[in-house]
C-alpha cells in the first residue's frame, strides 16, 4: 500500500527555525566559548608566548625577542624560586592539614549542639568576611615585637618576648597561624553544611547498635563526609598555593627567605623588577607546580580513602 504523500506546500521547509534546531548546541554554547577564548585561552596563550620571550620597551614600543632557552635557564638557576616553591609546599601542606582537622572538629561539634548553633556558626565565619588587608594589619599589630598583644601576654607571664615575624625559624609558622585563623571557617562552613545533611537515622542506628561517640565520628560521619572533605581540601590547597596577601603584608617574604613563596617571588620579578618574559616563565612553572601539587594531594587522599 502506497502511503499518501503530503502536498509539497505542506512539507516542512528547511528554514531559520530548522537551522537553529540543527545548530542549537553551538548557539547555546557559543557565548560561553567566546568568553572562554577571550578570558581564559587567549591570556594563557599570551602568557606562554611571553614566557618564551624577553620584552623590552624602546621609543615607547614593546620589543619582543625570542628567549625561551634563556628564560628556562634562568628559572633552573633561580635559587630563590626553589626556596619559594619549598616554602609554599610546606605552607600549603601544614595550613591545609590543620584547617581540615580544626574545621571538621568544629563542624561536628557545632552540629551536635542543641542551642546557640546559629549564633556560633555566624561568629565562626567572621574571619573569612574580613578583607585580607585588615587581617594583615591586625595580625601585624598583634605580632609586633614591642607593642603586640601577644608579647604583652608572653611577658606578662614572665617570659621573654617572642620574635614572631623577625625570626627565621618562627616566621613561617607565624604566617601559617594567620592562615589557619583566616581559612578554618571556610572549611568549617563547607563541612558543617555536609554534617547537617547527613541522614540522622544512620547515626541513630549506629548508636542503638552500641557504637560510642568516637566510633560514630570515625566510622560513620567521616566516611560519609568524604566527598565534602575532598572538595574543601582541594579548594584550600589551591588557595594556599596561591597565597600572597598575608605574607606580603606580614613579612614581605622575610626575614631572609624564611617566608618567601612563589606568588611573592613572581610579583617581585614581574612587577618590581619588570622582567616580563622571565616573570611569565615563572607563572607557567607555578601553574604546572600547582597542578602537580593538587594531583599529589588527590592521590594521597584517594590512598587514604582506601585504607
Amino acid at each position, binding site marked *: 500500500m502506497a502511503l499518501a504523500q503530503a502536498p509539497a506546500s505542506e512539507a516542512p521547509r528547511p528554514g531559520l527555525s530548522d537551522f537553529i534546531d540543527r545548530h542549537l548546541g553551538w548557539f547555546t554554547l557559543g557565548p560561553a566559548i567566546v568568553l572562554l577564548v577571550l578570558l581564559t585561552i587567549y591570556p594563557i596563550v599570551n602568557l606562554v608566548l611571553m614566557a618564551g620571550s624577553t620584552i623590552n620597551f624602546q621609543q615607547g614600543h614593546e620589543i619582543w625577542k625570542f628567549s625561551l632557552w634563556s628564560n628556562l635557564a634562568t628559572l633552573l638557576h633561580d635559587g630563590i624560586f626553589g626556596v619559594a616553591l619549598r616554602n609554599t609546599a610546606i605552607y600549603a601542606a601544614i595550613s591545609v592539614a590543620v584547617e581540615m582537622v580544626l574545621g571538621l572538629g568544629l563542624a561536628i561539634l557545632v552540629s551536635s549542639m542543641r542551642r546557640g548553633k546559629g549564633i556560633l556558626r555566624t561568629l565562626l565565619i567572621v574571619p573569612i568576611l574580613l578583607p585580607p588587608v585588615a587581617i594583615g594589619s591586625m595580625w601585624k599589630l598583634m605580632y609586633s615585637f614591642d607593642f603586640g598583644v601577644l608579647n604583652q601576654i608572653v611577658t606578662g607571664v614572665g617570659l621573654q618576648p617572642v620574635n614572631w615575624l623577625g625570626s627565621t625559624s618562627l616566621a613561617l609558622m607565624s604566617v601559617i597561624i594567620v592562615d589557619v585563623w583566616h581559612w578554618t571557617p571556610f572549611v568549617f562552613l563547607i563541612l558543617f553544611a555536609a554534617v547537617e545533611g547527613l541522614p540522622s537515622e544512620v547515626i541513630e542506628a549506629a548508636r542503638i547498635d552500641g557504637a560510642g561517640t568516637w566510633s560514630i565520628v570515625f566510622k560513620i560521619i567521616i566516611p560519609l563526609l568524604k566527598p565534602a572533605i575532598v572538595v574543601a581540601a582541594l579548594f584550600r590547597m589551591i588557595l594556599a598555593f596561591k597565597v600572597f596577601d598575608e605574607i606580603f603584608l606580614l613579612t614581605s617574604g622575610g626575614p*631572609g627567605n624564611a617566608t618567601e613563596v612563589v606568588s611573592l617571588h613572581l610579583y617581585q620579578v614581574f612587577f618590581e623588577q619588570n622582567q616580563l618574559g622571565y616573570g611569565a616563565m615563572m607563572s607557567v612553572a607555578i601553574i604546572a607546580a600547582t597542578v602537580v601539587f593538587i594531583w599529589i594531594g588527590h592521590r594521597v587522599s584517594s590512598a587514604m580513602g582506601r585504607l
Partner: protein
Amino acid sequence: MKWTTTGRRLVATAIIAPLLAAPALGASFLDVGKQAPINVLINASPWYDGFQAVVALYEKQTGNKVNLEVTPFPGMLEKARNAVRAGGTSPLDLLNIDSQNVVEFYAGGFLEPLKEIDPSFALPKEVLTLDDAGCWDAKKQFRTCSTGKLMGYAPNGNIELFYYRKDVYDKLHLKVPKTFDDVLANCKVLQKPPKSYGYVVRGQKGDSIFYDMNAFMLAYGAKYVKDAENGDFTVEINSPQALAALKKYIQIQKACGPANAGSLGQGDLIQLVQTGKGLQAQAVIAAFPNFDNPRKSAVVDKMNAAVLPAATPGGKPGVAIGSWVFAIPKNASEAGKKGAIAFSKWFLTYKAQYAYAEAGGIPVRTDVFSSDLKNKEKYRWMTAYLDEIKYGKQILGFKEGPAINQMLGLRYNQALVGELSPAAALNKGAQDMYDLFKKDGRKTGMLPPLPE
C-alpha cells in the same frame, strides 16, 4: 528694551566675577595663563598634605584645575606604567615616579623632554637637581644632566638624616655622633631593651634594608658597579669596602637595635621613635613631621636632626637620595602637557616652595632651606638637610636598578638575620648582579670573591 531677571543676573555675573577673581589672579606667584585641567599621579606619602595644600593654592591663584590621582606607594609604579604603555592618550598628564623606577620610563622612551614641550622651560638655579635625578642621556642610557636632556624634576628631595633625642642627650651629656663608632659609643649608654633602643635603622628585606644600607655603603666608599655612565658594568659590590660597611651595619643592629631588626620596616621604625623607645635613629626626612605630631607622638619637640655619621673621623657621610621625579608622558594630550608645564613653573617658584614647606612638604629650593624657616622650631631639620644634601647621590641610575635593589635587599637581610655570612651575602649579591648584566648584554665582570 526690557531686561528679564535671567538677563540681569547674567550681566551682573559677567561684571562681578572677574572683579572677584582679580585679587586672586593678581596675587599669583607666577602668571601661567589659562590652562586646561591636568591630572596628576601623586603618592599618599607623609608629605602629601603639603602637596595637596600647594595645589589648592595654585588652583585658587590661577583658576586652573588640577585633579590629583592619590595613590598608595605600592600602586604608583603600575599606574604610571599603565598610563604610558596602554596606548592612546595618557589619562595622566604629570606622573610622580620614584627616582629609581623612573629610569625604566626614560629608557623606554615614554617621557617627553620638558624643553620639547616648552623651549623656555628651565629649572631655576636654586632648585636642587638631586644628582641629576631628572636628566637622561639616551645614548649613554644613563641619568646625567651634563649630556642628557631634562625629562623631569624632583618635587621632593628625600634623604635620610640622623635623629636623636635632645632631652636624653642633654641629660646624659652625649654628643652628636660624627662616625658610626660614635653611634656605637652612644648606644652603649642608651641601649636598654625592651625599654629603649640605642639606634633604630630599617632591616626589613627589600627596599627598606637596601636603602638604609646605602648610608653605610657610601660612607665606606663601596660602589655597585665600576663606571655605569661609561658602560662599564663590572660588579664591585663584593669589595672590602662593602664588606666593612655591611659588618658595621650588622654590628650596630646587633648592639643597638631591637631583636626584630631583620623585619623592621618604616612604620615600625617611626613607631619606635614616636613612643620614645628609639633614642637615636636613621630615617628619611619625610618621617620627621610624624615625630612632632601631638596626636601620634610622645616625643613632640624632643627629636633633633643631624647629618648622618661617616665611616671615619673627617670622612663624608653616605647620602642616598630617595627622591621622586615629576615627568610628563609622551602620550599625554597637548593641552595636558602645556598645563603640566605651567603648573611645574609655578610650583618651582620660591613662594610656592615656601608655601609647600609650610604645609608639610619637603621643598627643593636651596633658598627656602636657608630662609627664615630654618630658624623656626618646626623646621629645625632644615640646617642638617642643607648640610647633608651636598653629599647626596642617586643610586643605580640604570635600568637594572629595581632588580638590583631587590637582589641586594635580600642578600643584606640574609646577612643580618644570619642566613649568610656578610662575605657570602656580598659574593652572592655580586653573582646575582653579574648574571643580570650578562643577560642584558652589558659589558660586565666581577671582583674576585671575598673569602668566606
